[in-house]
């Protein structure tokens, strides 16, 4: 049955996205308008950028629970620097570097100090968050710089800035992952680190780099969000790592053995964005979305693990 097997090859995520679109099309008038569809892509773009970094980390069998806080704090850094009179370009550069430095420490904790990734990132995330709070006294810092706001509101060659940035970042990430030794190492790190070590690869360095890169991407996302809200607020994005992890897993990257890839994550990001957007258009309050999306992500993870166990022929003890 060739027709059936072709259909069977389409990843289930696409089916779910299609199903959601049909449901929303029926029950949420206003979902299928050009404006709203563009909105979905604009909303999905920052999530894609941060999820790309998360995907790389998860490919190494790691996790980064600090991205949401890192994002917020980098936004705070930029806002704070601009408020104290730094020109925008310098503020963004310094903010990004500071954030990336923190996350570099994160990488060191995991790679050389051998801390479990979730505790290292939670601990450091908490510290970074603390710095962000102390810097601003826990307040939100308004941003009036219009050039900065261009990073979210502007357009380049007809493309809204977030989409443009996401495309560029994805291009870089693709080249990095699939056409450089770094990418090969990342993929091998999750699959078989011992083989890598025997092959003479500096595992510690590769691991540190992955976390640093993920933090850098989180920083870019944080800046886009700060531009969107025209403010820097440390707690603004504290729940983003959950969406990023969810998008990665739903897309089909697994916590085990380095299976998956950044291409798949696009689908996961789309699914979460469509889900969220549709709920918004249908008038479901944010409060309900929180628990609902948490449940969807958990179910996706359970399916992923169960599916893997089934294909591997029986669960282990």
């Amino acid at each position: 049955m060739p027709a059936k097997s072709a259909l069977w090859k389409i990843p289930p995520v696409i089916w779910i996205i299609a199903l959601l679109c049909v449901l929303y099309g029926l029950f949420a008038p206003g979902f299928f308008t050009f404006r709203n569809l563009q909105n979905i892509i604009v909303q999905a773009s920052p999530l894609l950028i941060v999820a790309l970094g998360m995907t790389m980390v998860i490919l190494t069998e790691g996790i980064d629970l600090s991205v949401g806080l890192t994002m917020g704090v980098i936004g705070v850094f930029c806002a704070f620097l601009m408020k104290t009179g730094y020109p925008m370009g310098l503020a963004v550069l310094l903010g990004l570097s500071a954030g990336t430095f923190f996350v570099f420490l994160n990488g060191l904790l995991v790679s050389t100090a051998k801390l479990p990734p979730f505790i290292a990132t939670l601990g450091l995330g908490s510290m970074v968050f603390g710095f962000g709070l102390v810097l601003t006294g826990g307040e939100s810092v308004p941003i009036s710089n219009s050039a900065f706001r261009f990073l979210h509101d502007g357009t380049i060659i007809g493309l809204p800035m977030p989409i443009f940035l996401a495309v560029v970042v994805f291009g870089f990430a693709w080249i990095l992952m699939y056409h450089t030794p770094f990418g090969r190492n990342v993929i091998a790190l999750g699959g078989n680190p011992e083989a890598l070590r025997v092959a003479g690869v500096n595992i510690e360095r590769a691991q540190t780099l992955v976390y640093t890169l993920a933090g850098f991407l989180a920083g870019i996302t944080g800046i886009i969000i700060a531009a969107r809200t025209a403010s820097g607020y440390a707690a603004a994005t504290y729940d983003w790592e959950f969406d990023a992890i969810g998008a990665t897993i739903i897309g089909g990257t697994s916590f085990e053995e380095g299976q998956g890839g950044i291409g798949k994550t696009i689908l996961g990001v789309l699914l979460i964005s469509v889900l969220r957007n549709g709920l918004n258009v249908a008038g479901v309050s944010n409060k309900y979305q929180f628990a609902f999306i948490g449940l969807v992500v958990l179910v996706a993870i359970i399916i992923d693990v169960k599916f893997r166990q089934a294909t591997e022929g029986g669960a282990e003890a």
Partner: protein
Amino acid sequence: MSVRLATKAIEEFGHHKRTLLAPILRLATLLALCLILTLLSENFLTWNNIINVLRQSTMLVVIGLGLTAVVLTAGIDLSVGGVLALVGCLTAQLLRSGVPIPLAMLIGIGVGAILGYFNGILVGIIGLPPFVATYGTKWIAEGLALILMQGQIIFGLPKAFRWIGAGYIWIIPAPIIITAVLALIFHILLSKTTIGYDIYALGTNREAAFYSGINVRAVSLLVYTLSGITAAIAGLLMTARLDAAEVGMGEPFLMQGMASVVMGGTSLMGGVGSIGGTIIGALILTLVVNGLNLLGISSLVHNIVTGGVILLAVFGDSVLRKYSE
């Protein structure tokens, strides 16, 4: 084969018990902190302040009890803050709508137990990595709390309920006595019963535990359920003490609860640790916070300190581990 693995697990278990350096270091830290604080402030060594520190530490200790059991099996429960908030909010809502106090508390603890059991299923039966499963539960619990509260804060709870957090038995605050009783129960469970032995064995060597006939699934279900219950009880204590409940009330407790456990010498790799250690860990953390307050340092700094303490403790544990091997 299975006998050999089991013997090996027992040997490893014994070996870890023999490392005495770490507990001495911890007690020394606690005493040093007390000394520093006594020198810093003449108010420190007063009955009122000591009682105050103990009362502040109760929530951390209670959360730490269940969390210790989970971490001993080489698991983790990142949902404790979320469960605490949900149970606090739910109980407050129930009390406000006139549900009798014991029933409201029982429902709150029941919800904590259910969420914990849910974690247990995800980890022990479905086989998700513990930090993923419990992180998901955290979001679900916080989401449910959001739905329940619709952005409001509840205060003005019945006086009889507030007693568990703010009342006294003779001159000792009720929460301290409640916590002491719970700690004793957990201590006995972990160190004097076969269930406790199974928990340690599971964390020391999962495979050996499985082959020596320990019901690995049942132990996982049990420890996560216990953690849900203790987080729920902490939620009740917190709500009663504040006389208020709001969605964000669990926020600091995940990091601080975890800091107490790892600083108390319970290894994230499982199999090593004790309730006594966790109590000392919670006291150290409370004293650090108390000291920051005495020095007039902003509470915004607490995040930095808690994060740093966790990293140091986990790092110290891995160094000690290498050293003792």
